[in-house]
């Protein structure tokens, strides 16, 4: 455990038994460091909540251990925070029960925490009358009022509408950076994860399968399943070819569709080619850098902010996003032929090891 590590997990195994059956979570190694935000991603039922509850000390490991070097409080905000009877301010003050704090200190902290999440005007309202979003803000206020060293969040945006999620995630990010609290947060919302995370941990089927810096995990998922979880949705099978373009290897999908990327895989290796939608460029005409071939536009979904475009490329559908109302987004039509390109640095290869990874 390094000096900056606040929580660490080693060789962890948690087994839960309920009426609905048994569940098993394993994690070889996971650390939460000071001043960092770790986002735990995974499909439903992959064990995200169990992991964060174990970090909070609410579940007892069957094997392995959870060590804490945190000098301040470790606290958790639940997925469905239930308000306590009484006012909003009372709900925050509860955090001070049994702690030695002066009255003025308490008042100051309550005000600060409520202001942080913009619900100070509700201080004297009964907590039971708050909306879902306000309740979530109250739970976060209470957690921050504790001045925690480690904050564990289980789906902090669940049940909120898009605007609510966006507003709350910004307030949360500001609170995290203002206080320097270390955060481990469960979510299955990729956009919140990208906004809030320094590092990402991915769980699949109860197993911790990848942990790393945010961009490493987002751009270099180690398996097909992880790629899907982290939003690398453009996935096409290919074979590493003999040709090389300088430092780059050429991966062939078919005769007319090739992708250049730096790789250590030897020629003949069968791989999944993964390109994140935001890294796939789309153009009409010539002059493209790093071309990967042409495709036909099959789908255009415009939500007023961004335009999601589906392109048939080598028999697979690739997806990319354009800014609405600008440039190509204004003129693009279904059936149009477009040129696709991708920076070789943003093309990721995942070796195909077994049939189970067939798409």
């Amino acid at each position: 455990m390094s000096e900056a590590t606040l929580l660490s997990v080693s060789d962890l195994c948690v087994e839960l038994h309920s009426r609905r059956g048994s569940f098993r979570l394993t994690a070889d190694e996971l650390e939460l460091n000071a001043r960092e935000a770790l986002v735990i991603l995974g499909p439903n039922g992959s064990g995200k909540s169990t992991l964060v509850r174990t970090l909070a000390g609410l579940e007892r490991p069957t094997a392995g251990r959870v060590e804490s070097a945190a000098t301040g409080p470790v606290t958790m905000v639940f997925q469905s925070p239930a308000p306590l009877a009484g006012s909003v301010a009372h709900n925050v003050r509860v955090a001070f029960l049994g702690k030695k704090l002066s009255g003025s200190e308490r008042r100051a902290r309550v005000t600060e925490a409520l202001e942080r999440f913009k619900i100070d005007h509700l201080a004297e309202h009964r907590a039971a009358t708050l909306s879902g979003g306000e309740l979530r803000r109250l739970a976060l206020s209470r957690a921050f009022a504790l001045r925690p060293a480690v904050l564990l969040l289980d789906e902090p945006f669940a049940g909120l509408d898009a605007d609510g999620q966006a507003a709350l995630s910004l307030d949360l990010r500001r609170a995290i950076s203002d206080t320097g609290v270390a955060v481990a947060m469960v979510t299955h919302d990729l956009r919140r994860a990208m906004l809030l995370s320094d590092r990402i941990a991915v769980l699949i089927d109860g197993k911790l399968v990848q942990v790393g810096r945010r961009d490493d995990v987002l751009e270099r998922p180690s398996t097909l399943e992880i790629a899907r979880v982290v939003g690398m949705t453009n996935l096409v099978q290919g074979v590493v070819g003999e040709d090389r373009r300088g430092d780059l290897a050429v991966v062939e999908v078919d005769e007319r569709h090739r992708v250049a990327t730096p790789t250590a895989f030897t020629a003949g290796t069968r791989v999944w080619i993964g390109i994140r939608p935001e890294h796939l460029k789309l153009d009409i005409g010539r002059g493209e850098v790093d071309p990967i071939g042409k495709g036909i536009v099959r789908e255009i979904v415009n939500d007023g902010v961004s335009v999601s475009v589906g392109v048939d490329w080598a028999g697979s559908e690739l997806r990319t996003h354009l800014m609405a109302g600008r440039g190509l987004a204004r003129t693009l039509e279904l059936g149009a032929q477009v040129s696709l390109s991708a920076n070789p640095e943003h093309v990721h290869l995942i070796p195909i090891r077994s049939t189970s990874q067939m798409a």
Partner: protein
Amino acid sequence: MNPPSIGLLVEITARTLAVCLPALAISLAIGLPIGIAIGGRRFAGRVPLVSLINTGMGAPPVVVGLVVFFALERNGPFGSWSLLYSPVAMVLAQVVIALPLVVGITLAAVGSLDEDWELQVRTLGVPKRWRLWLLVREIRLGLLAAVITALGGILSEVGAVMAVGGNLEGETRVLTTAILMYTQMGELEIALGLAVILVGLMLVLAGLLTAVQQSGRA
């Protein structure tokens, strides 16, 4: 028969309270912790225990009186304490009547809380005794119901206190046994007067408790 003096009515009322209030206090002191302990936990044997409590909630007081009678009588297991036909015996019977009510209502109130309630409070680092305080605060409506139900149960109860108290003038004569006695003596006006006091007492106590509860609400 002359109508009883105001002094006698006051005396009977005072003794009724002197018996019922300690019985209520003891029932709450024992019943609330048990109800909270059972309500917040899952353990083997919980289901039969809860159904036993539910049975106790409906136990006919007169049967309770009979059981306490046999426990306390001269030849009974606790006969040497000479408690039968004393206020202590009445308190005991009333505790046996009220205890299942308090436990049952308390554990239902605890059970109605969110599943994660205890954990949520615990992760805030709230120490155990403060958690308990919060829990009581959280379920205070249910607890108020428990108090009123228990008080109603023991204040209006006659069969058990008659059996173990004996309606002794100046010692164990309480409102209900006095009402029964005057009814049987044909002194219906006096019985009615005492009944009015009993109902009034119940109204005042329930009103007080409700007022306390309302004022605690933010």
